[in-house]
């Protein structure tokens, strides 16, 4: 009976401690709920309603049939009708569209004459998971769309090879290599994980050990303390970036088309954004353990909803909305845009501004909360 009583004593103690540690308790309930919602509802490996642009030099009965066929497939969502191809290319570099469907002048004439006119689809293949299913369906969609119209004396055009020659240009990643998309993305993921956690833990450790009180008793301003603590980790992040980019280039053969300086400024901004977040976490967490848990809480949606693991366009609107609030989402667009698509400042300015706003908000929050922790 003694043994049972001791077992009981320990059981009771564990339950009391479990209830006291709110953060751990929240993790135990929160993580399964978040995972269920994200994996169950938000993540979709067969993304539909992908944004696309149309560049059509003619508008006929046949072209309308083809376009409505694309739309009816639910893979393509024609958000833009463009006047020239350059405009469409810009949209693609900005990451606003996944496809450009182009129809050249004379398409209908050639079709009727049995000349198998070309139908060109330009796809952003930087993330193969986004485009592959839609492209796989494209030939069927075209053939089915024309089946109703090619009747009577035109019926013989429905040969085995189809009435139209479908040409697909996979841009930015013609060989559909997954690493091209994953490796640059990893840069963002690794920077998020380490930057947020390192600052949050380093700051919380100082509070736990009483060092913070010591620093505060010396004539140091909160901003000085914050800058002094953040700067070394910006350097650490820079070294991590160098390692990943060199590995991307020389081990995984990932192309680097764009401007190095543009990427570098994105990296620095992104690191600062994460450090500010880590600093804010450190003002919330009461122990290093809690700092770690908070980081994990943030990290999970970051990798799932940012477009790192799963196509951003595959997610429902509410999940995309959350994703837009995460700095990783915007950084992924910057790093993939610069490395794979050769995107320039004009293409990526919005993403930079988004991270900048996040940084300013977090930095302000960190300073305000930090000042309050003294009292």
């Amino acid at each position, binding site marked *: 009976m003694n043994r049972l009583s001791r077992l009981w004593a320990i059981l009771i103690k564990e339950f009391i401690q479990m209830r006291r540690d709110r953060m751990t308790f929240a993790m135990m309930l929160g993580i399964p709920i978040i995972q269920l919602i994200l994996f169950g509802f938000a993540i979709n490996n067969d993304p539909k309603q992908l944004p696309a642009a149309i560049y059509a030099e003619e508008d006929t009965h046949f072209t309308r049939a083809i376009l409505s066929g694309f739309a009816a497939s639910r893979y393509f969502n024609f958000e833009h009708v463009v006047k020239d191809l350059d405009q469409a290319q810009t949209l693609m570099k900005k990451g606003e569209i996944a496809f450009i469907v182009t129809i050249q002048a004379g398409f209908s004439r050639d079709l009727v004459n049995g000349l198998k006119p070309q139908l060109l689809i330009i796809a952003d293949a930087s993330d193969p998971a986004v485009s592959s299913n839609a492209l796989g369906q494209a030939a069927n969609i075209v053939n089915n769309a024309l089946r109703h119209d090619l009747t009577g004396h035109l019926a013989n055009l429905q040969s085995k090879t189809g009435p139209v020659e479908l040409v697909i240009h996979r841009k930015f990643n013609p060989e559909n290599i997954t690493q091209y998309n994953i490796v640059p993305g990893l840069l963002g993921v690794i920077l998020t994980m380490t930057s947020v956690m390192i600052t949050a833990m380093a700051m919380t450790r100082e509070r736990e*050990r*009483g*060092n913070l*009180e*010591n*620093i*505060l*008793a*010396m*004539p*140091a*301003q909160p901003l000085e303390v914050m800058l002094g603590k953040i700067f070394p980790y910006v350097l650490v992040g820079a070294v991590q970036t160098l390692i990943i980019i060199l590995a991307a280039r020389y081990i995984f053969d990932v192309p680097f088309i764009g401007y190095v300086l543009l990427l570098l400024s994105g990296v620095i901004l992104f690191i600062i954004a994460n450090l500010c977040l880590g600093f804010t976490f450190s003002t919330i967490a009461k122990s290093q353990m809690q700092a770690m848990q908070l980081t994990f809480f943030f990290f999970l949606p970051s990798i799932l909803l940012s477009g790192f693991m799963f196509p951003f366009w595959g997610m429902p609107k509410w999940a995309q909305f959350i994703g837009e609030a995460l700095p990783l989402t915007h950084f992924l667009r910057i790093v993939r845009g610069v490395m794979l698509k050769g995107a320039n400042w004009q293409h990526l300015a919005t993403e930079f501004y988004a991270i900048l706003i996040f940084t300013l908000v977090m930095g302000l929050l960190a300073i305000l909360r930090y000042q309050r922790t*003294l*009292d």
Partner: protein
Amino acid sequence: MSDVAIEVEGLVKKFGKKTVVNGIDLNIKKGQVWGFLGPNGSGKTTTIRMICGLLTPTSGKGSCLGYDIIRESKFIKQETGYMTQHFSFWEDLTIKENLQFVARMYNLTKSDEKVVNALAEIGLQQRQDQLAGNLSGGWKQRLALAAVTLHQPKLLLLDEPTAGVDPQARREFWAHIHKLSQQGVTVLVSTHYMDEAQRCDQIVYLANGQLITTGTVAQVIQHSGLVSFRLTGHNIRQYSEELQKMKCIQGVAFYGGSLHIVGKDKSEIEANLASSRFNQVSVEAVVPELEEAFIALTQQAKSSGSEYQ
């Protein structure tokens, strides 16, 4: 120049709904050593933190070294050394690195020289490259004192600096404090040790966030209004229980082979002791111990709430 180092009035600090410090007035002259005493949670640490500008008072005003404690805390910090209750230097830095950090934080001139001198003074030159975390309690305390005095502060705030330190180290520590005091440094030290309280020029007794009494040791004992008797005799302990039951006696304590009793009403105690039950006991009037005065003051503060001030 004024000879007042610290002057505060009606200092109040609330954390949420809890009032930790409730209206404290202090007037501390330069070069004095003041002892802060009081039970745990009486507001000693919070008061010290408000004086050096670490905490903003909820209400009240004051000045420290001629600077306003609310608006000019930046200047106070420059001239104050604050030694926290728990060792708060970096255990993963070496002894020397900790001192160098402090020197840089205060932007000291001739900082290398000052660090070397400080190391020599605390006798840690040989071990300067050891991690501070590996030091024992007494050595950590010496390092902390050296670090908070490195910038030659005019005011030293020491929060229970000698907790868990052996008697030899405590004695050396106090010798150092008095040396600094002679050089004109004002020292505020909180402690639970009565012998340390007796080394202070003035003591302040806090309970429940209120200042109960202040003055020299003799004044505090006198202020308590206590009388004390020493009882000796064969098997003196047997009387303890009976004495404790007497209403006029507030405290009974063993001191070696004797019993000390304290109370307020001298004649009533004497009348009680005159009973034939105590004819085997010799009674001698003595000066009450500081500890007895404090315990009595704490009890009075508890029973009469804020009325006793």
